[in-house]
């Protein structure tokens, strides 16, 4: 006679939950609050630097759409005088700060007191990411359950020890074929006695080793080189930050790899299953009373298989976060994953999240396993899996997915439907080799393109190529990570699970269903899971190529919002397609006899490679060196010539759309600021375009010639960012409300300083960065009708020209008055 009433059993209970911000945790909290109205919850949440645990709970748990149903129900009852959702949370939920990766759980005194009064502790915190660094997985997954057990022993009366329900995974059984019953890991016939303490020590040592290795001079040089390759001449502070980021990413990568290989060497599919398995083992030891003759901690283990979107509760298809199968499915839908390894008749052990919640609640309600005399029996292990009771075959899943996406295609950025490929169920090695080959081809093309001085739309190819490479890399990761799961042929027994189901009364079966046999796989895959996945992945599901377009126009609207304060512009290749060398060459040839002019320009151009490399190394040095060439130039003459250069060189090579943009900003009331390393004398005529100009200035010798020396450090690299900050400071403007336009990674500090960076005709590296960071990219072209002289040669000068120009610009010298 089924008599287990879960709601009744949980009535009056205080239940502590770890991992509440996770996928399973959120679903569990929702279920308990809605379906077991008599229980109280204590949420153990890790404090973050930015938010208190209370804020985290509100933002990351209760705002989730899982609570929509409950919120709605309570809104209805509140209208009749009942309590609101917030009142109910206030009454039934307490949030305490704690962290399962530190000893004693990092609880404060209040937290310890609250935890000590709990009747049940459900431990669902884990680092579920399949590619966590080894040490992190060890700290959280392996040591987490034991730490909880030790803490409970520590803070609770031995007579009032709560029931610990530890959430593990079916895959603790490791890579094997055939039955995997609900038994402790070490009772399994293939267990060969791995010492979890040694594994913990080894993982901690690995971290230390990799940290040390990453700081070796050759490694640091390598990270620095990589940072430079990515950012270019972005200035010392940014390069340093990027280098350090590279280093720590490398350490992390090494630890991920270490986790994967260690797990594989011991026969687990990945670090997650491996650390969870040893975690179970450690828990058995730590649950025993630390003192002889004391009470042992009662505990149970629930092992879910691959948890996916819910079947019915709180709503069909509910899912949180991007889970294991989703990226694979979406990659497939996007045509990226052409093949995925797997055995067609293999079982994909998927279990909807609401069934897992049901199992956990049932175990919690049923209490620890006890002998007939009431003493503790060996802990109960319940597997929440579908493989043995209602298997989903790999082929069936793939067929379902394929036909669904054929019917509901995902669209590419051009609005064309993507045709999903047919899967051949190849072996993992073959798929991996294929992807590796693709990756190496793309990498070669990419490095070639990166080396070319590309700009604008051409640079976008390079950046597209990079995104292709990332796609392939991602696919490769999936294959490496999940391939083992798709190939796994273990069948997880669910006897204990079904026993619970047998004992549950009708109401509990309805509210806390856990029976995998109710799943209609075809319906689940095509009507519940895939629509939900597609919706969450935010892929394009309608034709038409509007997405990209609307993104840049959205960004452009932000940039041109009246709320912005200031717009800073770089000059070269942002406003005009010219540079200091061209200006110099134009001015210098202006007064040379015709026969020398071409020779001069060619000589300057021949210097280009060395100038370019000097520029790449350090722009300030380059400018200082280069401007020496102006030494001795008469101020009058240069001033007159630059007026002509304005029309002949600067405006001819200008980007009309860029000039228009400056003016749009001005019209909106933004202050417009030109920050350039160009010389003041060379750009004087273009200055009226801006409210203010920060540029290089040359000193003048007493004889009225330029000295070729600068009054100040030319504004380059991080000095530009500083210039923007200082400018904002001076005028009481907010840098967060500033827009910056620049074309190269040497302007990165300026772009990063601005709240709204815009990459103009970016070179390949900046193009890639802008894409990654979601910056607005503008392609400003020269006016098509302009004459585009190949060489920057000033038109021949004669006495009268200068005079005619001067009189026309500075008013008449004779006549005029009456």
């Amino acid at each position: 006679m089924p008599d287990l009433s879960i709601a009744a059993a949980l009535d009056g209970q205080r239940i502590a939950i770890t991992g509440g911000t996770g996928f399973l945790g959120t679903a569990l909290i929702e279920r308990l609050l809605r379906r077991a109205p008599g229980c109280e919850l204590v949420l153990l949440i890790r404090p973050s630097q930015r938010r208190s645990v209370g804020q985290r709970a509100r933002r990351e748990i209760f705002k989730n759409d899982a609570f929509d149903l409950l919120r709605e129900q309570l809104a209805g009852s509140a209208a009749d005088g009942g309590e609101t959702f917030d009142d109910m949370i206030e009454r039934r939920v307490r949030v305490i700060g704690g962290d399962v990766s530190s000893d004693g759980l990092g609880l404060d005194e209040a937290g310890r007191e609250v935890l000590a009064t709990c009747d049940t502790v459900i431990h669902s915190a884990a680092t579920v990411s399949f590619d966590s660094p080894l040490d992190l997985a060890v700290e959280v997954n392996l040591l987490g359950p034991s730490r909880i057990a030790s803490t409970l022993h520590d803070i609770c009366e031995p007579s009032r020890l709560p029931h610990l329900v530890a959430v593990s995974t079916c895959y603790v059984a490791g890579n094997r074929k055939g039955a995997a019953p609900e038994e402790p890991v070490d009772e399994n016939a293939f267990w060969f006695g791995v010492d979890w303490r040694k594994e913990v020590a080894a993982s901690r040592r690995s971290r230390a080793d990799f940290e040390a290795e990453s700081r070796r001079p050759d490694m640091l040089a390598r990270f620095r080189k990589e940072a430079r390759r990515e950012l270019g001449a972005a200035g010392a502070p940014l390069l340093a930050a990027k280098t350090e980021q590279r280093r720590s990413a490398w350490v992390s990568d090494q630890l991920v790899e270490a986790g994967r290989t260690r797990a594989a060497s011991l026969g687990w599919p990945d670090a997650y299953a491996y650390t969870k398995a040893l975690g179970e083992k450690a828990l058995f030891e730590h649950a025993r009373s630390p003192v002889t003759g004391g009470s042992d901690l009662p505990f149970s283990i629930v092992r879910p298989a691959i948890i996916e979107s819910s079947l019915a509760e709180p709503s069909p298809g509910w899912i949180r976060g991007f889970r294991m199968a989703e990226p694979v499915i979406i990659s497939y839908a996007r045509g990226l994953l052409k093949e995925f390894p797997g055995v067609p008749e293999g079982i994909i052990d998927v279990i909807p999240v609401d069934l897992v919640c049901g199992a956990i609640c049932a175990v919690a309600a049923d209490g620890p396993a006890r002998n007939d005399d009431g003493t503790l029996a060996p802990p109960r292990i319940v597997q929440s899996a579908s493989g043995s009771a209602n298997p989903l075959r790999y082929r069936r899943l793939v067929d379902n997915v394929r036909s669904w996406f054929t019917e509901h295609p995902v669209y590419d950025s051009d609005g064309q439907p993507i045709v999903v490929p047919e899967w051949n169920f190849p072996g993992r090695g073959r798929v991996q080799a294929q992807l590796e080959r693709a990756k190496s081809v793309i990498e070669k093309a990419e490095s070639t393109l990166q080396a070319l001085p590309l700009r604008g739309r051409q640079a976008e190819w390079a950046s597209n190529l990079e995104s292709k490479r990332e796609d392939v890399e991602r696919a490769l990761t999936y294959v490496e990570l999940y391939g083992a799961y798709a190939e796994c042929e273990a069948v997880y027994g669910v006897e204990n699970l079904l026993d619970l189901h047998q004992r549950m009364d009708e109401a509990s079966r309805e509210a806390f269903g856990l029976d995998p046999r109710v799943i209609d796989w075809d319906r689940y895959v095509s009507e519940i899971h895939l629509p939900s996945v597609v919706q969450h992945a935010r892929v394009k599901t309608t034709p038409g190529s509007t997405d990209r377009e609307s993104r840049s126009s959205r960004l452009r609207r932000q940039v041109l919002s009246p709320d912005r304060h200031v717009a800073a512009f770089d000059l070269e290749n942002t406003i005009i397609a010219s540079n200091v060398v061209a200006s110099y060459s134009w001015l210098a040839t202006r007064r040379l006899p015709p026969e020398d002019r071409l020779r001069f320009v060619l000589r300057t151009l021949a210097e280009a490679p060395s100038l370019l490399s000097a520029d790449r190394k350090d722009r300030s040095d380059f400018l200082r060196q280069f401007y020496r060439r102006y030494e001795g130039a008469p101020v009058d003459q240069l001033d007159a010539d630059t007026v002509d250069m304005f029309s002949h060189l600067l405006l001819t090579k200008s980007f009309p759309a860029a000039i228009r943009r400056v003016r749009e900003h001005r019209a909106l009331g933004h202050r417009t600021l030109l920050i350039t390393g160009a010389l003041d004398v060379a750009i004087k005529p273009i200055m009226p375009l801006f409210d203010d100009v920060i540029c290089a200035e040359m000193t003048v010798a007493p004889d009225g010639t330029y000295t070729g020396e600068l009054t100040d450090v030319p504004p380059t690299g991080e000095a530009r960012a500083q210039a923007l900050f200082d400018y904002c400071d001076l005028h009481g403007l907010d840098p967060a409300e500033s827009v910056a336009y620049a074309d190269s990674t040497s302007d990165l500090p300026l772009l990063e300083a601005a709240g709204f960076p815009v990459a103009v005709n970016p070179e390949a590296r900046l193009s890639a960065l802008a894409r990654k960071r979601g910056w607005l990219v503008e392609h400003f072209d020269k006016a098509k009708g302009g004459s585009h002289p190949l060489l920057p040669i000033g038109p021949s000068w004669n006495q009268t020209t200068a005079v005619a120009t001067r009189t026309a610009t500075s008013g008449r010298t004779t006549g005029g008055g009456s």
Partner: protein
Amino acid sequence: MPRPGLVLDVDSSTPPIVFHHGEDFVLEKLPAGRSRVIYPPEPHEGLEDTDAAIRHALEHPLGDSQPLSTLLFSGMKLTICFDDISLPLPPMRKPDVRQRIIEAVLDTAAAAGVDDVEIIAALALHRRMTEDELRHAVGDRVYDAFAPSGRLYNHDAEDPDGMLEIGTTDKGELVEINKRAATSDLIVYVNINLVSMDGGWKSTATGLSGYRSLRHHHNVHTMQHSKSFMDRHASELHHSNWRMGKVLRDGGVKVFQVETTLNNDTFGTSALDTASPLSMLQKREWEWTAKDRATFMAVQAGLKRMPARAKRAAFQSWKAPYAVTSVQAGEVEAVHERTLEQNFAQHLVPVEGQTDVLTMGLPYICPYNVNSVMNPILVMCLGLGYFFNMYRGKPPVREGGVLIMRHPTPWEFHPVHHPSYIDFFEQVLSQTTDPVEVEKYEQAFAEDEWYRHLYRTSYAYHGVHPFYMWYWGSHALQHLGKVVIVGGDPKAVRRLGFAPASTMADALEIASDVVGPAPTITHVHNPPLLMADVT
């Protein structure tokens, strides 16, 4: 004796007609039985001795005016103003008639002991002329004598100290012109009346003025009531200028007007003129010799191989062998009446009735792209402004009819000459092409500091200038049911509010949606210029 113009009815034996197509030429076969082609009169004979004619005109003034020599006296302030780069089109071969007149005037002034002489390019809101262009117009001798000392320069309508308010017309129109000119004892205005729109009071009241004056007649209302602006007596544009001229005269501004007319010899007709590879274009197609046909084929083949830039450079370097057909000087209005007679004699062709469709081939040049790029806005202005208005009486196309133009209409702009055009195209025409709506954006462009800066220090047309281009076509826009451009960049054509077509046949198909099947067609043959006298 040059033959007069004629209207040819197209029948099945009519050869294909040459159409200008920007920097190309296209032969089009027009539908027989319902098409007519208006051919201009042949170029009139030029003056035998232009310099003598000039001297004669200066000393035998028309109307209420003394001979120039008696108007000049020692110690006086003399300002010579001349038409800018927009005239004539294409530029004429050296020596430019302006140079001849200015030299004659300077000789007379020197003889009278006049020291204070300044020479101003009367360009209103056009771009400044470059040194080369000034040299071409006034000659090296005048340039070298006056420019270095700052006594030869471009008019600057935005110089805050350079303009003088003279008064207001009885219609409330403000008259403001160049201060140096206004405060001179005498202005000698040197004109080239290529078409009948030019000259008269428009020379000083427009050429030497600025935005504050121009806005009174360079606007949609005025242009829609100038039918046409080539017919001075039916042109509200000219009425306004004449009112302003009265204010100038009453305000004591003394103008000695020198006007000249040219024949329509754009490409050279003389068999001896070997420098005229395109002389066949001056001929009627059925009179082409075998050599003409062969040359035409060769030119077309050559153009086909030429890169666009080289083609543009080649055409822009073309200097027309125009001959001066008359010079008259003296009192503005009397002089201009004589000038118009000469213009009309050279250009007018009597035409009977209107047709459903008007076709034209647009050349590579208009008044505002000399040494520059014919951008889409200029295409509109040349077709719907200048060419459409080349009529007296009524347009050769009926109201609600269709205009079909041939021009490649590339989406190209000169970044130095036409910066405000670029923004006008992107910001205004993307919103509306209705002249009345367009006018609402005018002031912002006209008073923009950056355009002002470019107009004054670089070589840019004034910020407001693209609006004037659009207003120039507003009478045509009001009159026509549809405009089709054949062979244009479809995107640019659509931006102009017109329909793109790839062939003349397609264009006629599009036209028949508006005017009905088998429409009647008038083709205005160009080159050279002509003016339809439609009754």
